[in-house]
């Protein structure tokens, strides 16, 4: 991936600076739906991006391969594809490989080759490595070691589609109107220099987990230092990358709940912690002192998803916008309320979550607005929704 990173970061910036629009939509009953309202919502926030990046993560789109990892890989050349496929072959049982269907779209230029592979890992016998760790390692190795290849989606029954362009152009390019999913997250990007590359667009993906991110982590250096010490390799110089690894570490590897994840990346202030009941204070103090390097400082709002949940959280002093809303069994997150209203004029609840307090939608459960409009450190009881 060194080539691509140089393409994306010709000035060798510490981190690529960008700001964005984000949108997320989930039917907690698990019913798949078309992405059409998502495209409209993103188009409505056109001016939050500048055409240098757009993308979508859609869950539930490959029901025919529910247990296979769907690897979406972009290549700068056929040679890179050959090299990658040679790399994959001994390590995976490749059930199907195909070029991702695209259409020539106005405004989409310099598009890479995009392929997808439905694979099962071939884990050596007696290996103590878990399937997931094996997958992560392979993805990172492809990205780090094979020039001109980049795995941009690697989960099961989900896919990330992204590139350089406005989000609505990306949707048309990838023919997303042909997909149906129960969770859609979307991103429109506004990097501050004109150099942009396809892999740097959002969502970022690590296995099932994806993240779309509006903001800039002022703590990037500290976060990166922390993650690299643990063994993550930050190659792309984007703050979203460290966010992705933080998600991977806390949610996937440590298997801590999303509430805890929010309290790691967006922790309460010490003075609030000091006022907490003892158990809470002990926990939060431990989280901050152990995971201080994962405190995401600086403006952000993010929408994180995997197949069963969609989580939105902002930085702890809420420097970037986020609106949450529900209508029936549908949960919306957006940078702007207007985009939600455009999709669904009538809403059951619309609210602005507090800085650092996560809003979590899970299959079968909608979030309760009150739990994210005030600080509440007891475990939340979501509203159950029939699936």
């Amino acid at each position, binding site marked *: 991936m060194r080539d691509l990173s140089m393409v994306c970061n010709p000035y*060798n910036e*510490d*981190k690529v*600076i*960008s*700001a964005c629009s984000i949108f997320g939509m989930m039917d907690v009953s698990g019913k798949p739906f078309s992405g059409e309202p998502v495209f409209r919502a993103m188009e409505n926030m056109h001016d939050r991006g500048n055409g240098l990046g757009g993308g979508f993560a859609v869950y539930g789109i490959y029901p025919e391969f529910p247990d296979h990892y769907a690897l979406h890989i972009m290549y700068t050349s056929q040679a890179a594809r050959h090299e990658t496929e040679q790399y994959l072959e001994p390590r995976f049982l490749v059930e199907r490989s195909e070029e991702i269907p695209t259409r020539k779209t106005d405004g989409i230029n310099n598009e890479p080759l995009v392929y997808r592979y439905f694979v099962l890992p071939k884990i050596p016998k007696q290996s103590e490595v878990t399937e997931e760790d094996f997958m992560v390692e392979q993805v990172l190795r492809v990205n780090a070691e094979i020039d001109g290849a980049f795995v941009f989606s690697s989960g099961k029954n989900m896919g990330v589609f992204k590139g350089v362009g406005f989000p609505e152009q990306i949707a048309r390019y990838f023919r997303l109107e042909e997909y149906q999913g129960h969770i859609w997250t979307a991103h429109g990007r506004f990097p*501050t220099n004109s150099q942009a590359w396809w892999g740097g667009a959002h969502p970022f993906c690590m296995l099932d987990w994806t993240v779309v991110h509006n*903001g*800039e*982590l*002022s*703590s*990037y*250096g*500290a*976060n*990166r*230092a*922390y993650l*690299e*010490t*643990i*063994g993550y390799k930050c190659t792309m110089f984007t703050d979203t990358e460290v966010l992705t690894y933080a998600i991977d570490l806390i949610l996937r590897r*440590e298997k*801590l*709940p999303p509430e*805890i994840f929010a309290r790691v990346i967006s922790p309460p*202030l*010490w*003075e609030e912690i000091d006022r907490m009941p003892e*158990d809470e204070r*002990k*926990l939060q*103090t*431990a*989280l*901050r*002192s*152990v*995971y*201080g*390097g994962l*405190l995401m*400082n*600086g*403006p952000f709002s993010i929408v994180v998803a995997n197949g069963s949940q969609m989580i939105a959280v902002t930085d*702890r*002093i809420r*420097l970037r916008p986020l609106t949450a809303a529900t209508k029936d069994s549908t949960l919306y997150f957006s940078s702007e309320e207007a985009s939600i209203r455009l999709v669904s004029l009538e809403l059951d609840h619309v609210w602005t979550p507090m800085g650092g307090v996560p809003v979590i939608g899970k299959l079968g459960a909608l979030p309760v607005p009150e739990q994210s409009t005030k600080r509440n450190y*007891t*475990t939340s009881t979501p509203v159950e929704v029939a699936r």
Partner: protein
Amino acid sequence: MKIEEHQNNNPSKPAQRKASDFKIRSNRLSEFAVQRDYDRCIKCEVCIKQCSFDVHYRDEEDDLIKHRPENCVGCHRCAVMCPTAAISITPNPAQYRAHGSWSGEHVKDINRQAETGGVVLTGSGNDKAAPVYWDRMLINASQVTNPSIDPLREPMELRTYIGAKPASVKVKDGKLASEMPPQIKIQMPILFSAISYGAISYNVQKAIAEAAEELGTLYNTGEGGLHPDFYKYKDNTIVQVASGRFGVHPDYLNAARMVEIKIGQGAKPGIGGHLAGEKVSESVSITRMIPMGTDAISPAPQHDIYSIEDLRMLIFALKEATNYRVPVSVKIAAVHNAAAIASGIVRAGADVVAIDGFRGGTGAAPKAIRDNVGLPIEFALAAVDQRLRDEGIRNQVTLISGGGIRCAADIVKAIALGADAVYIGTAALIAVGCTLCQKCYSGKCNWGIATQNPYLAKRVNSEIAKNRLVNLVQGWSHEIKEMLGGMGINSIESLKGSRSQLRGVGLTSEELDILGIRPAGM
């Protein structure tokens, strides 16, 4: 190591008595010139009373205050105390002949040694013009894309936890399910470094202890034991276990929030310490558990640590002795292979590693060592932090750096280079009054700091000194907050190891590589 003790007394010398038998014959020029504006002098004699080096005196016959500049150490006490500002102390305009190779300092030191045959002693920190790398690093700030934060309006957090950290936190039923190793909460990443009672006066150590208490941070006893009066500051005390083992006993270890094993000191790596007998007052002797008036000699090595596994045994012996209640720190001097040593120390079980750079202070050190041995803290810190990161063990240990921290910006840079917190020593003493005259070893400190002479020691009012220390650290804290806010972060942990917040100016590419920072403009 005192100069006077190294005089050559040749027994075969015939019984003659010459001038040089009575006093040291000196070819040295006075270092300082004393200028007294007689139009301003009101003959109040404050200068006479304030100078412990007998510079000023009243000439009864002429009814004038006069001076002996050859005694002056340049501490400026008289100039500061003079109510009419009639005195100025300047470098002696009479200089040794200029020479590109033989500086006046070389000539003076050679003369001193030719007179005495001894080691040239000095105090305070290295005053050589070796590059100060802090000054060659510049700090970043936010502009459009991420907002800066105004610390006057928004919370800005400097709280830091000292102690080993586990790799992860286990949570069960919304509660903390893993045991945390002992942690010490400090309100800002600034600790007072080891300065022993003995090296400094009672009042100064009291002021430092009280300042630590008021600030919510820690001070370090150094290798001087813990005076009975100071047990009450136990929540803010780091006790040191060093090669002399002065004052070490179970109560001492358990009267602290942290125990520090001192392997080395930045100002004098590789050598021990020597507190002259005249500074061992009754109170010091009780505190150190040594006879009054005897020299307190700390050996160069710890004689029970000849290897890293010995260190591990001592670390765990101390943890046992304190019932695993407090973190154990290991302090080393910044030396060439500090990175590897630090890695060994972490693996030996230390909760905290303290690295002391070669500009760190001392009460007494051979000048040759102070000025020539060791590393600038900036390099040592960067190298240690990088090595611990490369080995994946950086997150489990607290890294404290000291030795030449002069201002808030130095602290910001140190934390961006990877430190968790810094030790300040000389800066604290300057806040109390030290003017860096470097005569700490003489016991005649005119500022009442490095002395046990009760007449001089009274000059530090511990209340004033405490307030000055508190003010200094609070002032620095405000500045750190301003700089953090400028970088768009509101918590000190978001700065730690964030070397991308620094850029180098005027550094070679090797230096940039070691510091792990980019040149300014890139």
